[in-house]
């Protein structure tokens, strides 16, 4: 868990994946691999991008660290601070609100005792509100790792929380 004491390096398999991705673009355009590689890095290193991890990615792609920071901070999927094992991303956009997303959000806030952007003291859950996830007909929607949970009710959300507590495994996008 403690990122500082671990050497920041991809496994041989992950490295092979990174080189395959770089090969998708013309010579000298390896910067195009930045988003896919940042996703891999986030998944590998506790689901957030520390400055050290970003420097490592910059090094791998042969670009300046600032080029990585400015991209990582632009896109909402990259976490720039440590997060809980499960990041609960609740859609807060109009269509989901028409079918009860706000109720779901306030239920989760009460249940977990945190506001969006915060993490529970046990490091289990981070609550995050996000914009439309392209599942508007099946709202309220919550994304956790790569999985979409649709047509959620407060009851179903409670069951999910229980399930996550039991599994106790970090959920990442890829």
């Amino acid at each position, binding site marked *: 868990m403690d990122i500082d004491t671990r050497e920041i390096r991809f496994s041989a398999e992950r490295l092979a994946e990174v080189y395959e991705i770089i090969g998708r673009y013309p010579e000298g355009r390896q910067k195009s691999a930045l988003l*896919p590689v*940042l996703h891999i890095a986030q998944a590998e290193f506790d689901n957030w991008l520390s400055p050290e991890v970003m420097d490592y990615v910059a090094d791998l792609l042969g670009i300046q660290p600032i080029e990585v920071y400015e991209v990582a901070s632009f896109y909402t999927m990259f976490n720039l601070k440590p997060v809980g094992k499960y990041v609960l991303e609740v859609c807060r956009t*109009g269509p989901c609100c*028409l*079918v009860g997303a706000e109720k779901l959000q306030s239920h989760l806030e009460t249940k977990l005792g945190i506001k969006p952007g915060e993490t529970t003291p046990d490091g289990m859950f981070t609550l995050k509100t996000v*914009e439309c996830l*392209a599942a*508007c007909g099946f709202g309220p929607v919550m994304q956790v790792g790569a999985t979409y949970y649709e047509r959620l009710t407060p009851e179903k959300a409670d069951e999910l929380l229980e399930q996550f507590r039991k599994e106790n495994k970090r959920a990442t996008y890829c």
Partner: protein
Amino acid sequence: MEVYRKQGGYAAVEKALKTMTPDEVLEEVKKSGLRGRGGAGFPTGLKWSFLAKPEGVPRYLVCNADESEPGTFKDRDLMVRNPHSLIEGMIVSSFALGANTSYIYVRGELFYVIRILEKAISEAREKGFLGKNILGSGYDLELYVQPGGGAYICGEETALIESLEGKRGNPRIKPPFPAVSGVWGCPTVVNNVETIAATSWIVQHGGDEYAKIGIGRSTGTKLISACGNINKPGIYEIELGLPVEEFIYSDEYCGGIAGGKRLKAVVAGGSSVPVLPANLILKTMAGESRLMSYESLAEGGFVSGTMLGSGGFIVMDEDACIVRNTWNFTRFYHHESCGQCSPCREGTGWMEKVLHRIEYGHGKMSDIDLLVDVAAKIEGNTICPLGDAAAWPVGSAIRHFRDEFEWHVREPRLSQERNYGLAGYADPLPVQAAEA
């Protein structure tokens, strides 16, 4: 893959690569009258014909699978259910454009869809539909899937190109257009998932056959993603020209308003298009029945019409609060503004604050005209159309529902209580007596 092949899948690739020239494919797409399904509805054949073809410079086709327009969830469904239809479309479209490397840019949240596409691509490669010398035609194509990072603006084609290059999604100033200078400065076409998937049908059956479907200049079928307060939310493929009333009330489609309530308003083409009240979405100002087509939905301009847009059909019942929904959308645009132009960056933030004030019982009557004024100052004054997309929902909501805004100002407590009961959100601010 087996299923798709049995149903005649990849026949278009065989037909195009073995019996047609790229220009013949382009000709069929032109004849079909197909219009871009990403939102703007620009004729696809015409767009392709603008592609610059300088000697020795590679050209690229990029599929826009960013799908982030609120209310729109059709491309995800198409890619999950029928990934090969997109891949087949990518092959024939890339062939027509002379692209030897193409990318499908998928919003990053949809990693599970990316996996489905990657699997389908490797199946297609195994069968010899991708790679070098496809089907012995001498045509080479590599196809890759690129994840985004969570940013609505990357659906805008030049922002998408920037993002594909590994940068922030800041839209570029046009011209030059991507057709001349796109990915890595090379000529590029960006098309929506649904547009590209349609091209394989067109190649297989001919542009004339496609043009027979639909109505007038709105040819073909369109995927409509319907959501909000309806009995049967979901994705429906309709023939363009279907009456809106039938779409909302027929059991074949939305199945009517949930809970037997009354229809209040519809946002017909994704959050960016003007909202229309029930009477104007069902019938035009002239009293004609409104149809699901580019022309009919736009009838009456922005005074009494709207747009087909991306096909994100958001239905609101009598209990929905227009002020709250408008505030919500404005917060979305403010959040998603890339920040390059001040009218968009500042204007969306300002509108969000004022709408929040009205919604939460602190509004003034003068705020309503202030909103109209700010929206008008954003519109047309920005690098990319996100500014317009943020202005239109506000302008149209006030145009058609001014009463409701005024009611919020006059009766802050009542409007708060009503919304609290219905939506269940907590009031973050104490209600004060509204100032006159």
